């Protein structure tokens, strides 16, 4: 059992929680994730480790279905039955020169820990964080504190530059090409945004989020195709060379359980008439 020591809402449908899990926190590195299972009837879901403080790890998640909703309902003092991690290959941290970190929506959660590691390794770090509107933007202050420069975009122009993060990224590539780029967010955003750096031949990483079960390489649920080869994202990734990733396959596989997810949501929110009470 792992105790939640703090929980709060960061934006509409986006929540943050700190969990006491020393076996995860003590060895976690930038870019890694954990897998948790809330209770006996729960499923296993992967979430990025978005911060570490002593024995505590932080998760930041968007409520999109049954498990994230259950998670959002947990408060300080509540427990989570299972947490395993840190999982996946850490971010390839080294001295690149100038790095641009682009985050979209809840994908921003992954950035501060990577930014910090890259800073410590001697890089200049430029952050670009984007959201649909001002109210959905998360971690602005934290990113401000770990980046040398921070650019903000909103789709509707309610804050920062109006438009997608791809805009400022393209401009940077044209005017002062960086040495490495990370793009983390929804699959479609990663596909489009990482496409920007391709003509410039800039090394670009994305963090893939296929459906996972164990997170340890024993099921193959997380398989993705990178450079024409099938890889298991949980052990070979989650970060891969953006320009080699088959994003269409990723997006297709993310829809594996669309019907079941609807059924589960209905079951838990009372769509079945039981009020989620069985």
């Amino acid at each position, binding site marked *: 059992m792992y105790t939640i020591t703090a929980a709060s809402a960061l934006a509409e449908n986006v929540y943050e929680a700190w969990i006491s899990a020393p076996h995860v926190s003590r060895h976690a590195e930038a870019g890694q994730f954990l897998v948790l299972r809330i209770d006996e009837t729960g499923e*296993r879901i992967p979430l990025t480790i978005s911060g570490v403080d002593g024995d505590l790890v932080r998760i930041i998640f968007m409520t999109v279905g*049954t498990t994230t909703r259950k998670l959002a309902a947990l408060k300080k003092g509540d427990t989570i039955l299972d947490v395993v*991690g840190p999982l996946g290959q850490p971010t390839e941290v080294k001295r690149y020169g100038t790095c641009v970190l682009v985050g979209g929506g809840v994908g921003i959660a992954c950035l501060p820990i990577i930014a910090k590691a890259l800073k410590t390794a001697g890089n200049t770090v430029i952050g670009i964080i984007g959201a649909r509107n001002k109210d959905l933007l998360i971690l602005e202050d934290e990113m401000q504190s770990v980046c040398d420069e921070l650019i903000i975009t909103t789709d509707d122009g309610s804050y920062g530059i109006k438009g997608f993060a791809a805009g400022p990224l393209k401009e940077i590539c044209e005017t002062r090409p960086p040495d490495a780029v990370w793009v983390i967010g929804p699959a479609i955003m990663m596909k489009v945004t990482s496409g920007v750096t391709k003509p410039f031949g800039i090394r670009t990483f994305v963090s893939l989020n296929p459906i996972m079960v164990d997170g340890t390489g024993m099921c193959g649920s997380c398989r993705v195709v990178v450079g024409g080869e099938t890889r298991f994202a949980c052990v070979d990734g989650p970060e891969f060379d953006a320009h080699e990733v088959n994003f269409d396959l990723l997006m297709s*596989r993310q829809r*594996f359980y669309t019907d*079941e997810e609807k*059924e589960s949501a209905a079951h838990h929110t009372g769509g079945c008439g039981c009020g989620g009470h*069985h």
Partner: protein
Amino acid sequence: MSDRPADLRVHDFEEVDSGIPAEEAIAEAARCLQCKKPACVDGCPVGIDIPGFIRCIEDGDFRSAIGIIKESNMLPAVCGRVCPQEVQCEGECILGVKDKPIAIGSLERFLADWERENGIEIPELAEKRSERIAVVGSGPAGLTAAAELARNGFSVTIFEAFHEPGGVLTYGIPEFRLPKEVVQAEISEVKRLGVEIRTNYLVGRSLPVEELLSYDAIILATGAGLPAFMGIPGENQIGVYSANEFLTRVNLLHADAFPHHDTPVKKGRSVVVIGGGNVAMDAARVAKRMGADVTLVYRRRREDMPARLVEAHHAEEEGIRFLCCTNPTRILGEGTVTGVEVVSMDMCELDDSGRPSAKPIPGSEYIIPADVVIEAIGQSPNPLLIRMIEGLVREKKGNLLVDESGKTTVPKIYAAGDVATGAATVILAMGAAKTAADAVCRMLTEE
């Protein structure tokens, strides 16, 4: 054996074979010839004194009988149920030449179940010692090694990546063959010996290699969990599973009870399972129990299937269609599976395994409609931890290189079970674990 009728059991996950009552066990024991040179014992990989325990059954002394088994086998309730007896103990039994061999597996299971109901005796523990031993993995190999070492007084910790211990016994072999209650009982017994089991610990990550190496001895029992895929076109589509994933979702995470349990699985209307081993049989029978029409595709002949005889027999009884001498060539669909193209196979000259090798017959391709495809074509050791430990040598299929005592190429590190042999059997994993535990004991006490 007393199997529940096939038409009943395909609707639930309760055990297929409900075991035999005491009178039947005694009657069966009375058939044993008590051979002077018992061939059955040669067939048992851990050399259980089979006539010895059978004589005790005949005398009605079940307590002594189970004691004899446990001298060589820590998990009799498991082995009695899942050992491929027909090629081991029972395959060698002299009575099998003319008549039916003694049902050794059933007798072993009977005793283990009897003991669980009548109280398990905890063996005496040796005096506590100061050495700490890490066992990685809690499958049959890890549990056996840990129990053996704990009995010898060592302080033993098992690290398990999953949230529940048991390895394949928990996530792979389904309830209807091996009730989880039985597995739990065996695990509690190991805990009662003082073994600590830390779940949610992926060694190499949650426990870094430097910390692992700080133990006085290490036993790697990480199994062969890495699933192989065929590498044919279309296999990354929605609806294609490795057997590992499919079985884990159901056995470990109870996807059969979705949406009451949150883990989903595609139940499928027409399921095609690829393979002919125990894993394929289990996947097929699980799919059947969730309501699908199931076809099993195997590239060699029926008699070449590596599955336990009784499992293949049970699968057929349950209405699973076997298509032998047939191999998939591609999986059809536009993102979601709609069918499997297969080709008929011609049996040719024998290969290294003594089975005929199979060659596709050109032009014999045809399509089987399917909405779920499960590949059960083999597993190899998960390289995650092995790659992190400097000096470990792996053989061709990724199996760890060990000597006859289970010693790896790195000092203090031993390995047992599927990680060293490749996917094998429960009893072989346990036998190897016992050998490795004995070697560790010698290493630490003779220093």
